[in-house]
């Protein structure tokens, strides 16, 4: 598999990582516990292959394992770290505060989460008790076997498949730390440092296996959840520390094989307290990652392509704007997708844009905002829109070059 070398004759497509799990897989994940049983392992492998097949059929170029084997994009680390366990508790950052926009409109909760199976971290902050990570001992990485199984599953699923590349998401040290009740380490800084050292094993293994590593970093943008009452300056200082830890964890890894995912919480709420991207874009650029995936389709962030006009993308980086809203059942018109891509391409150059989705379609195994078949239809629309954008952008850049 080659590194991403976005070519100016195409606009590549990808998504944010998670996809709806099949019902039986979801049941296994929600039940928790040992998964070494041969039948379960076999089923998980099949499910990864199905997820890859669906992505390829929908026209996705840079595919993932759909996070098929993960219960949630944060909580999965409990299975892979010594010194970390899961507990039902009222303690912890999320449950103390919850997203600030929903604090303004508590009556909106019923609307925002109606008709969906709420679970895991999406639920956090909404109910008094929720599942939290608890740190009760020294943290080390013990997930090598589970991770290797995941890497093997994805590798097997890709056999005979025509994809441009493949990626695997992993959580950032700080988002894990923020979702964690600290009982062992004396300070947050020590906890963060320990998580960085432990997760570095996972980051390296993903890249060594030949995949692109996506680090999920909602902690860079998620001020309305993680630091609503802080001043912008204090929040930025905190983010800068987090990024230092992340960069140490990424030490020695080729940045061109790394991308980060910025988001503001994958829930259909008002989002009126979301931090503007312009307030942290410089910090996001500091991460040793070439790719920057960011929400750019939903009505709170669609306008932010203008940020890249004034804060130009550094050399060697590319942007993965979300051109599909993962909270809406509307199937984006391919022309809407194309226009969104073109706005970015005109600012950062068509060779520096990969079309993506705002966030995952199943950030936790138990929750999807959109029914599965509409997910595939939305991804097909993404691919069709990318084709339309590419044909127009390439034509206009060629005619530009041909001009005397």
């Amino acid at each position, binding site marked *: 598999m080659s590194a991403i070398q976005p070519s100016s004759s195409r606009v590549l497509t990808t998504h944010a990582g998670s996809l709806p799990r099949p019902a039986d897989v979801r049941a296994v994940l929600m039940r928790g516990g040992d998964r070494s049983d041969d039948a379960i392992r076999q089923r998980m492998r099949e499910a990864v292959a199905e997820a890859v097949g669906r992505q390829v059929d929908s026209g996705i170029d840079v595919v993932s394992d759909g996070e098929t084997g993960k219960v949630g994009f944060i909580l999965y680390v409990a299975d892979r770290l010594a010194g970390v366990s899961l507990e039902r508790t009222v303690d912890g950052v999320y449950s103390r505060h919850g997203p600030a926009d929903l604090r303004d409109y508590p009556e909106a909760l019923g609307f925002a989460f109606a008709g969906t199976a709420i679970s895991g971290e999406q639920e956090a902050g909404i109910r008094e008790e929720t599942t939290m990570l608890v740190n009760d001992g020294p943290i080390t990485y013990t997930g090598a076997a589970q991770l290797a199984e995941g890497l093997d599953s994805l590798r097997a699923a890709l056999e005979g498949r025509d994809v441009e590349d493949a990626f695997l998401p992993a959580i950032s040290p700080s988002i894990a730390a923020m979702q964690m009740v600290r009982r062992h380490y004396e300070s947050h800084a020590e906890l963060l440092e320990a998580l960085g050292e432990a997760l570095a094993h996972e980051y390296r293994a993903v890249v060594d296996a030949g995949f692109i590593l996506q680090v999920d970093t909602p902690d860079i943008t998620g001020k309305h959840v993680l630091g609503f009452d802080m001043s912008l300056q204090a929040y930025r200082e905190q983010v800068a520390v987090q990024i230092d830890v992340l960069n140490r964890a990424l030490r020695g890894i080729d940045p061109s094989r790394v991308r980060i995912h910025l988001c503001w919480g994958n829930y259909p*709420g*008002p989002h009126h307290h979301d931090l503007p991207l*312009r307030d942290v*874009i410089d910090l996001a650029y500091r991460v040793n990652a070439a790719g920057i995936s960011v929400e750019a389709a939903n009505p*709170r962030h669609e306008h932010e392509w203008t940020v890249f006009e004034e804060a130009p993308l550094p050399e060697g980086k590319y942007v993965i704007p979300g051109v599909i809203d993962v909270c*809406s059942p509307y*199937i984006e018109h391919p022309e809407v997708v194309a*226009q969104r891509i073109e706005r970015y391409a005109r600012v950062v150059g068509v060779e520096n844009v990969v079309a993506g989705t705002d966030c995952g379609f199943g950030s936790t195994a138990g929750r999807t905002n959109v029914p599965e*078949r509409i997910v595939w239809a939305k991804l097909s629309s993404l691919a069709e829109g990318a084709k339309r954008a590419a044909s127009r952008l390439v034509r206009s850049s060629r005619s530009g070059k041909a001009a005397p």
Partner: protein
Amino acid sequence: MKHSTQRILCTHTGSLPRPADLRDALVRIDQGDPPDAETFAVQVQAAVADVVARQVAAGLDIVNDGEMSKVSYSTYVTERLSGFGGAGRSVAPPDIQDFPEWALGLGMGDVSDTIAVPACVDDVTYANRAPLDTDLAHLRAAVRTSAPHDVFMSAASPGVVSLFLENQHYASHDDYLHALAAAMKVEYDAIHQAGFVLQIDCPDLAMGRHIQVPGASLEEWRRTLLLHVDALNEATCDIPPADMRIHLCWGNYEGPHHLDVPLGDILDIVFRARPAGIAFEAANPRHEHEWQVFEDVALPDGKVLIPGVIDTTTSYVEHPELVAQRILRFARVVGRERVIAGTDCGFASAAAMAPIDPKITFAKLRAMADGAERASGELWDGRPAHTPVTLPR
């Protein structure tokens, strides 16, 4: 109808969430168990006064009564028109039928159970003016207090009535349309004479494609569309075009919408409708791109666009900069004075269905007004609509 001569004016589609007690009363009326008439009238009057004040406070320029007295934007006519009774077929969007698992999540299965749909079983006449006169009086009173820039009132088009209330009486669809036009003319004229901008709700001109005649070819359907526009023009023949607007939509429901007819396929017929203002969905992910149609098709003289810059099916509060970008796209193509900012559709097309929390609804309207102000700054004063990036060191 006031235009955006010095800045971009703001309006919305019509329906707003009813207060809980009023919603319950409207549901009872719909189920044939009306509450005490006097209590109901008092509830409506208070709700209209409040909702007009709230629109003005949210920064809207062209306001209405929020359709407080109406069970839904189209079926309210059965209270006013003679000729309806029995049971008609109910219509469901075929895009949702393609994804039945989503319909379940929406509770769509329940809708037809709670909203009784009669049919046209006798001659249609405008038999009961009292609800209309009451609506006009309530709005007039509310406007005196809140003093908005301009005022509109909505009424159903002959075509949308024909879409939702099945014809079991007239010999042809065309005959039915003309009878509806003759009857609804009474309401249209009364709204105009009251000094309000008349908005005619015409989902039949867009949603009709995938709801009314999903099997027909585009050409066949366009012929039907011409009949609908003829009926509309007949019913509005005594009102100057500049005092009217129409609202097009593809159905105000959170669905896949992959069968929606493209705006470009119907625009030439839409232009034939007499009203000067054209309100239409332009914010949701199935129609946001269609501003581009106006690069290829010239807007006829006298017409004004009212694009939806707020999606009425999502609880996300639009960022004002996004609102400004959406307005600017239209203004750059057709000219700033020919754009009024609007919403995709109503926020409670039926009283019983308000998918977005009422407080968030008004936050979204505020975001529209803020966005219009940003767009106006750029269009009239050359001030950039977006906040510049100023990063601390």
